[in-house]
């Protein structure tokens, strides 16, 4: 089996997982107490209005029938209409998803830019002042509540110094880069420590391995030793951790989106829970789940390029 076949197999395996997710989402959100019609119409709504809304949401049918309709629409790739906004779910979801994904990608870039140099240098200068400072700082940022960090950043950089805008998404690519810097940095600071530590540890571990010593003994230039042998192997666990973290960011950008008032998909899903917008929740969770699975797959593929031991 080659890599291509492996990928195909994983993609096929995605289907039962997604199915499992549809079941969980579907029944979980319907288990949330409170009449969704009231969530839509408010507490002063008249009974006929509520009846009409329940019928429109399909709630007056038995659960398995509702599930059947849901799956039937899904098979047609129809994600349904948002009961809250009255427009097809995709319209709102994908616009908001763009924002969240921008943050995720931006965060990945910032995290890599932060972690690579710091992790490598910390390993090379093991036990030096630099190493200790970096590790201590990372220990602190790892445990700072992200919404707290976000608020502090806003106060410092946006209000006091005025370098960055206080919130929002901005217009145009550069505008996005400007507006999303602080939110992405906030998230990076919670992931970078893990990566730096992992990178540092694995570089140290690899540097002590025999094959590195052999390479050095053979007279290879230090830089070549570093990149070809050390880094490539050391990156493996770091890449895996990065992949897991990115996967965790899907939907995990909620808090940051709320703090920085970003029109993202995470905030959308949380609000959909409150609004009992079943269609949006179902669609949104499925989309996120797909993304998570794809990110995991990508991580495994990259891992397979890095680790020669991996066989398909």
């Amino acid at each position, binding site marked *: 089996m080659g890599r291509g076949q492996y990928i195909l197999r994983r993609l096929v395996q995605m289907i039962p997982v997604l199915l499992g997710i549809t079941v969980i989402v579907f029944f979980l959100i319907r288990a949330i*107490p*409170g*009449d*969704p019609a*009231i*969530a839509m*119409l*408010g*507490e*002063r*709504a*008249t009974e*006929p*209005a509520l009846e*009409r809304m329940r019928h429109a949401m399909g709630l007056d049918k038995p659960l398995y029938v509702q599930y059947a309709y849901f799956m039937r629409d899904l098979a047609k790739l129809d994600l349904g209409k948002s009961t*809250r*906004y*009255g*427009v097809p779910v995709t319209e*709102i979801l994908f616009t908001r998803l763009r924002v969240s994904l921008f943050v995720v990608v931006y965060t990945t870039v910032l995290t890599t830019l932060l972690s690579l140099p710091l992790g490598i240098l910390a390993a090379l200068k093991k036990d030096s002042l630099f190493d200790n400072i970096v590790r201590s700082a990372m220990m602190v940022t790892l445990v700072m509540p992200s919404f707290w960090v976000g*608020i502090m950043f*806003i106060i410092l950089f*946006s*209000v006091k110094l*005025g370098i960055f*805008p*206080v*919130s*929002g998404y901005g217009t145009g690519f550069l505008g996005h880069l400007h507006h999303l810097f602080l939110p992405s940095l906030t998230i990076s600071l919670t992931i970078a420590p893990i990566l730096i530590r992992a990178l540092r540890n694995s570089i140290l571990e690899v540097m002590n391995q025999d094959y590195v010593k052999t390479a050095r003994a053979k007279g290879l230039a230090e830089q070549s030793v570093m990149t070809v042998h050390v880094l490539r192997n050391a990156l493996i666990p770091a890449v895996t951790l990065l992949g897991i973290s990115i996967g965790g960011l899907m939907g995990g950008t909620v808090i940051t989106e*709320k*703090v*920085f*008032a970003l*029109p993202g998909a995470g*905030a*959308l899903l949380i*609000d959909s829970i*409150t609004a*009992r917008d079943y269609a949006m929740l179902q669609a949104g969770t499925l989309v996120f789940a797909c993304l998570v699975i794809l990110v995991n797959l990508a991580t495994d593929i990259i891992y397979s390029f890095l680790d020669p031991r991996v066989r398909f």
Partner: protein
Amino acid sequence: MGKDYLVNERWIDALTAHLQAGHLSRRDFVKRATVLGLSAPAISAILVACGGSSEKATSTTAPSTGGTSATPTSGGVTINQNVTPTAASGSGSAVAALSPTAAAPTGAAGGAVKFSRQVDAENLDPVIQDGNINIWVFMSIYDQLIRVDEKGIDLLPGLATDWSVSADNLTYTFNIREGVKYSDGSDLKMEDITWSIERARDTKESPWNFTLVQVKDVQAPDDKTIVITLNQPWSPFLSDISMFNSSIVSKAFADKVGVAALVDQCMGTGPFALKDWKKAEAMTLVKNAHYWETGLPLLDQITLTVVPDVNAQILQLQGGEVDGVIGQGDVPFNRIADLEKDPKLQVIKSLSTYNNFMVLQTQHTPLDDVDVRQALNYATDKQAIIKTILFGVAEESNSFMPNGSLFWNADQVAYPFDLDKAKEAIGKSKSPNGFDIEIQTRSGNDQQSAIATVIKDMWSKINVNVTISPLEATVQRQNYRDEKFAIQITGWTNDIIDPDEIVSYAILPESTNNYHTGWIDQHAIDLANQGRTEHDPDKRRAIYYEIQQIHRDAAPWVYLYVVPYVDALSKKVQGFFHHPMGQFDFRKTSIES
């Protein structure tokens, strides 16, 4: 008045008017003016100028035509305190055409503004929506036959230029303004009016059709007149027809897009039209080029953005990214002081009917005991709440009717904070040793959380042990409807100037079982029904005063306070007006460039 006063000038006029007509005592005037931010020297200047107004309400007898001696302001608007604006004489006299705007617009024309709110509107159909978040917006898009004046006291011509009532108070004839056009240029037709009002009355899903239930018939005998016949004499009728659900919508438009589309598509004769609506992001309104009031509106465009986070809103305002923060309850009171210090910003507090109170489920022991309820009222230190949680920006409430509203009893003594009386009341009750009780709050609502915490502390002094249960919004609402609660914190804003609206929610059990308290008093119900068919203003006042007393004595609520509307804006925004009925009046709003 110069720009050094941070208070909207029109509120000074309104208060002065109340004071002049004897609706407010001097003491109340001082209290309210201070809440609105008026400085002490200014207050005494006004008191001196108005000097000698008595405590009693002297209703000016001639209800029609402007220019009576009691008019303290310019513009020819008669201040008719506590008088049902028409049919007082019962002789079918016409109300003269009063100009709907007090003063000529002063700001510069043109320009666009951006205001933020934490929550987006959801449904712009005047008939089936429910919520200030929608009403406050679509009132700029639609007109009604009658408007409420800027002081929240009087009724003015809207799409109707004048009206008259038959001697038996059953037939109202409205002369309709000519030359009114919708924002797409089409003409206002009489069938739009008949259709809109009938739809408002007949739509079963509307939470508001109780206001039009007495409307028997709406006819258009010619293309300038509308005749409405009632089933029985109904004194709140003219107020009812001014309510937002009686907005006039273009029938042709509704036929074209379908009535169901009216939730997010609009065609009205109001000063603005809906241009664009990205749900949960931003709504854009543009000037109605065909608006019937010449010279208005001043602005070309208004964008209402959705910013769910209060800190983000304030920061955006301070940073100049938006021109105002105007959502209901958006501006946190603890920030008012430092926002006012910002030279680029202004904080406008507008008179409101926003009454806040706790509802007690009277079928839930021990709240079924009136002594217990009174004890809870006495044990609540409202001044402490106002000072600590609202930073002084509120007024204690003494009635189920909002302070300052028509037929509100300013002199009613409700429950000043008195621990001794509280202990005495609970001692008399069936639970003299105290009890455990649950207050359900909305999770995520900081203010409710703070109020509940303070109440818990206060009531512990009479051995009432409170558990605070934050509940998710829908669950809390559901519990409210199903009456599965002991105590919840809630509020009210008047949508019409007539007390009949709040009375039908709080006294007449049909709509909400009296705010889901389950408290029912037959005498109060009889009085309420009387009040609806009585047209004499003095008799009505007596009726509503008695109802307020009954409600006070039975204490199905814990009265808390009335809060003004607070909006924070850039100083560049001029002419911003937050109407006492709640909606924004953007007609004369302008922006300095």
